[in-house]
């Protein structure tokens, strides 16, 4: 058997490989550009918040954050509602021609194809709707991208709820809707939480569609704004690291606060 200290050594190594790069960015965000490029210090010798205040004062970071929060919230909520309804139908009804199975499977295929494949058509579609550079354009796109995922995940959660419970409620005089509301919904709630957590992370972090669908701070999301910023300030390492810290902070805090629900979503349900 491997010695215990070897195990701890490996764990220590893994943890430092994960954390060191992050540390380097966070440290840089508290340095001045001079300290970063000329002194190459390993930690900030004279920590400053200037980089952050500058981002909020002059660079629209408040806007980016607001846009991200609105777009993410609305689209994940819509996708979760639509997706749960659809998933319930697929999980509980048998449709003619095996339609239920086919629909489930085609939605999964849509999910599997990397989104970059439909980048151009979606851009042309939103362009035709005249919704470029608006919240609505992003919300429509993200809702659609999330719906396929929500149907897929919620279906597996609904299937885990025994059908007998609903049946019993309906025999006892509940309407179907009543049974759904009082029996199924509470039992599916943890699944809905797990599903939306993953959807929130993916949507908040999404960059590619935001890149082509937005062009001004009016609608730019956090990742889009961050990327634009560093395009312009190529060697302003201090602002760049501060932007990176700000860009990732909300979602990392969110992920930590909900981490026990996270793994199943990240693996598309492969791990329960």
């Amino acid at each position: 058997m491997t010695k215990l200290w070897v195990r701890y050594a490996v764990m220590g190594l893994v943890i430092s490989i994960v954390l060191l790069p992050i540390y380097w960015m966070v440290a840089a965000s508290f340095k001045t550009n001079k300290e970063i490029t000329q002194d190459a210090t390993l930690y900030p010798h004279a920590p400053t918040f200037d980089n952050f205040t500058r981002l909020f004062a002059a660079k629209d970071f408040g806007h980016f954050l607001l846009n991200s929060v609105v777009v993410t919230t609305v689209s994940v909520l819509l996708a979760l509602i639509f997706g749960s309804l659809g998933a319930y139908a697929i999980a509980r009804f048998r449709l003619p021609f095996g339609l239920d199975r086919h629909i489930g499977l085609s939605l999964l295929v849509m999910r599997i194809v990397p989104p970059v494949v439909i980048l151009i058509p979606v851009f042309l579609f939103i362009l035709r709707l005249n919704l470029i550079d608006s919240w609505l354009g992003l919300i429509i796109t993200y809702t659609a991208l999330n719906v396929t995922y929500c149907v897929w995940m919620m279906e597996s959660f609904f299937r885990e709820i025994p059908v007998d419970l609903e049946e019993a409620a309906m025999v006892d005089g509940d309407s179907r809707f009543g049974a759904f509301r009082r029996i199924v919904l509470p039992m599916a709630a943890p699944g809905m939480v797990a599903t939306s957590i993953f959807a929130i992370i993916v949507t908040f972090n999404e960059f590619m569609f935001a890149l082509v669908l937005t062009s001004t701070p009016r609608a730019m999301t956090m990742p889009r704004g961050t990327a634009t910023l560093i395009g312009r300030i190529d060697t302003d390492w201090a602002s760049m690291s501060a932007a990176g810290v700000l860009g990732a902070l909300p979602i990392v805090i969110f992920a930590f606060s909900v981490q026990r629900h996270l793994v199943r979503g990240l693996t598309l349900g492969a791990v329960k």
Partner: protein
Amino acid sequence: MSKALVRKDRLQGAGLDGALPYLLLAPSLLVVMAVLLYPLIDGLRASTKFYRYGKPLRDVGFDNYVQLWSDPQFLNSLMVTVSFVASAVILETVLGFALALFCSREIAGIRFMRTILIIPMVVTPVVVAIVFRLIYASDAGMLTAISQTFGGGSVEILGRPLRAFIGLVALDVWEWTPLMFLILLAGLQSLPVEPLEAARVDGAGGWRLFWDHTLPMMRPILAVAIVLRTIDAFGTFDQVFVLTRGGPGEATRLLSIFGYDTAFKFQQTGYAAALFVTMGLIILACAMAAVRLLKKVEAK
């Protein structure tokens, strides 16, 4: 699939009830059809047209598709993408599996490590690219700082083709090995212990145990993890866009970046659409082959 067999349709009623499932499915299907399917078909149509400055000029049939396969830039992109996906996924699988085997028995601290390992996966990919630019930068980078601490000179990564490519693979390995680890760890922990115990009683050592028992039992979940990761890696965009923008030269220009540039920088919408359709077909083919392989493995 076994779940489908135990499905019950006792709840199915008549009349309005019969229409219920369709009503429930309607919102999802409408959104998907309007925003994903219709544009997809539109994209197929665009891929048979010749565009100049973003405007369709004339129908060219399958010319765009034919042209792709004699376009050195496309072929190079395809090569870069395949090498990137292969090296990243292989490294992630090996490292993730090794780490999972290492941690399969509970020791104090594992929980903490698992928590830390979530970070690379959830940090915004754009920010991951910033993190790595800050590591690789020849004037401000961590590698340079470390090298200087030990008396060396500055380290240049992103300016050289091979190093930039390796740097990109390293980024992907850093970001996604944790996912492999988590999936495979869950798989290991769900394995039945009896066969392993029996083999151990029979005197099998560590490696024997691994090759003859653990690996075969892990094959299905390994396959799922590899397929998921491969498909995802094919679509990598954000990290390259921010880290190298495809450069230097074409060293890290993945298909996704090449397609993006073709469409939005050079405005050759039709050609780019054909490229993405081709890319989608390649991925679908890979996925279908993988699923078939999976079924064969499961049937054994």
